[in-house]
């Protein structure tokens, strides 16, 4: 059994099928748990049915290689997303306890992302954002209640699943936008060398886009694992805070950052913290073909 953590499938059925094929080729079976740190699709009231259908197709594929899917909704998902699929659970303001051969997992979460992480002129495209100043108490109280319920079941592993990263961990980037078609990497890496901006223009300098409330929660409460995504450029980063192992699990969708896209996290042993990041690519292509195909 494995714990597979993905994010930002973006209704991309073809990619989900590629992931399934890759894992099937390893004869991984169905006895796995899949966690999704948000980014299931792109919700708007006008395309609600299409949105739900496409997500369901993707999750049905994933249920071929897993016994349970646990997710939180991301910044572009429907705020109160309820897919009504068996073995699929949304843990936004909610929790689930799973008895598995990896151990007893208590999973709880919070979806969406803080609005300051999105470029001002792009806010209208994101359906699930929150104002951290106004929502701070609500978020903390929701996380605390879910945590206490999880703890009550005395799990081996307490897992926090969020879309937003905590502040100051794998969250340093320019504000995100919906129309980033193929941004590469942060080319103003050297902030000292970046040109000072005209005040009339919005800042394009990188900054911390994570949630301070989630960060405070991780520092105050005892967790084993915390998974997030949202800040794509920082995908694949790992740190340890308060004995909890934190992962920005990157994004399965190749967009917007081709270099950190197509990635997922696989944990084979939670107790021994045996994990590896993998990508949905053909690693046997020669370097030139690989670059041509995936970048």
């Amino acid at each position, binding site marked *: 059994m494995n714990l597979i953590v993905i994010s930002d499938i973006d209704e991309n059925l073809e990619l989900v099928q590629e992931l399934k094929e890759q894992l099937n080729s390893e004869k991984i079976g169905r006895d796995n748990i899949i966690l999704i740190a948000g980014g299931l699709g792109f919700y708007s009231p006008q395309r609600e049915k299409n949105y739900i259908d496409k997500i369901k197709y993707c999750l049905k594929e994933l249920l071929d290689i897993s016994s349970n899917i646990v997710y939180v909704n991301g910044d572009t998902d429907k705020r109160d997303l309820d897919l009504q699929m068996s073995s699929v659970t949304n843990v936004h303001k909610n929790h689930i306890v799973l008895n598995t051969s990896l151990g007893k997992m208590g999973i709880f979460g919070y979806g969406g992302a803080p609005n300051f992480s999105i470029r001002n002129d792009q806010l209208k495209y994101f359906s699930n954002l929150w104002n951290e100043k106004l929502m701070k108490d609500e978020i903390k109280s929701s996380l605390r209640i879910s945590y206490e319920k999880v703890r009550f079941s005395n799990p081996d592993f307490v897992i926090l699943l969020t879309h937003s990263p905590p502040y100051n961990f794998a969250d340093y980037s320019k504000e995100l936008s919906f129309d980033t078609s193929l941004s590469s990497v942060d080319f103003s890496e050297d902030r*000292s060398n970046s040109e000072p901006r005209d005040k009339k223009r919005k800042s394009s300098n990188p900054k911390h886009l994570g949630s301070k409330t989630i960060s405070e929660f991780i520092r105050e409460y005892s967790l084993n694992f915390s998974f997030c995504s949202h800040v794509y450029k920082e995908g694949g980063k790992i740190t340890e805070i308060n004995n909890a192992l934190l992962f920005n699990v990157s994004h399965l969708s190749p967009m917007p950052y081709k270099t950190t896209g197509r990635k997922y996290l696989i944990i084979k042993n939670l107790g021994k913290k045996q994990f590896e990041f993998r990508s949905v*690519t053909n690693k046997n292509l020669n370097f030139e073909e690989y670059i041509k195909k995936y970048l």
Partner: protein
Amino acid sequence: MNENKSGFKGTLELLQVEITKEVENYIKDTHKKNFFISLKQGAGKTIIALNILSELKNKGIFKKALVLIPRSNLVGHWAKECNKMFYGLSILPNPTLSKKGIEKILPKIHQNEIDGFATTIQSFRNFVKKGYIGEKDFDVVIIDEASDLVVAKDFFEKFRMSNYALGLEQWKKTIKIFLMPYQVRGDKIEALVNKFNPKITQVIRREATSDSGRLNYIVHDPIIINDAYVNEFIEVIQNFYSETRRKVIRFLKQKKIKGFEENLETLVNPYLIAKLKKNYGLTSIDINQLNTLISKYILYKHIKNWFLYSNREDITRSILSEQSTVNKWLKQEDKKLSALLKLLQEQIKEEKKVFIYSQYVSLAKFLFKLIKKELNLSENDIYVVTGEDQDDQSDKLEKFIEEGKILIATPVFDKGTDIGGKITGKKAVILFTPPYNKDNLLQVAGRIRGGEVFTLAYRGYEEEQLRCLIEVLKDNPKVENKT
């Protein structure tokens, strides 16, 4: 009060005296207003600028000075040097002033309580735009490191002047003194002269004449690292990079857009793209095509740098790490870093102070941690300075000069900072990420004011590129070449 005479506390070099006199004479005899002073590194441009101010003050030609500096971290340093080296000159450092700050400082200048203030060229533009300051407030403007004023070739003006200095050319009565290094191209200076009215503008270009004004460098051939994997990766990426560049240029030609061939990266700026869309009637499909090409172009450039400059962290996090050859390579030692450590050990053994130049903040920090650990150095032995250390940049520099062995710095110290001038012993610079622009290369290498220059290159593509670049440094007359 600043009524007393001012002057240099020590003894000026002959060149410094000559240039001061020359400027004074031009002002007196020909009523020139603009001076472009282009001198070799180490000639003491700052001292010359201050000496001109001092002499003009003594002769009653100026009472109110504005000093414009390219980087905020240099403003304090400039004012400090002024107070240290000159008596009777008071220039206040104010990197970023608010309206209130300006309202406080201007009366002091007008009432002659101080001689002027130093600020950044970026602030200058904001102050002028908002009407906080104007020509009436100053008799003299010194623009240090003015080579950045001409930023790029432009279709309309041949060379485009930096937005930050726009408007300065309209200050007709104020004396403006632009200081720039000798290697700034003549056509760039010519473009500025035309902008500032050739009739009242004088160019003073001079190589150092006295031996003490010259800097002695020993430029070593690149240290070559054998790593066939890296060379293979770089050649592939370089091909994609060149191909994408060709596509961008073809696109620009098709749309009859001129003036960006030398600066394709600027096309990533959405404001510029919006301008192009309007001026050249580009469609949304055109814009998407251009955005995709430019993003790819920049992406290839970055990936190339990841491999060349030991950015294994980003490679590991990227999908490249999964490719079988890259995966194999990642399991091997980083040969460039090993060569760097070996070089540093030798330099430290020879009691040299070493400045390592890194283009990137993350790389500078990474090198700091690695070198400190691997060479078992103490807190006082090694320092890292990036744009994030606004407050203690000069403290760290002073500590390095006094007692440190290694200083790693990003472009915050690429110009206007005298890293090596006060070092009495042996010194060396390692250009870990050598700037491939000739002007920048000479600027960076010149920071140590003489000494040994080292570079490292993977055998093959990087070696070829770097050898061409090194020739630029070796072409300098007072350079001793070592193979």
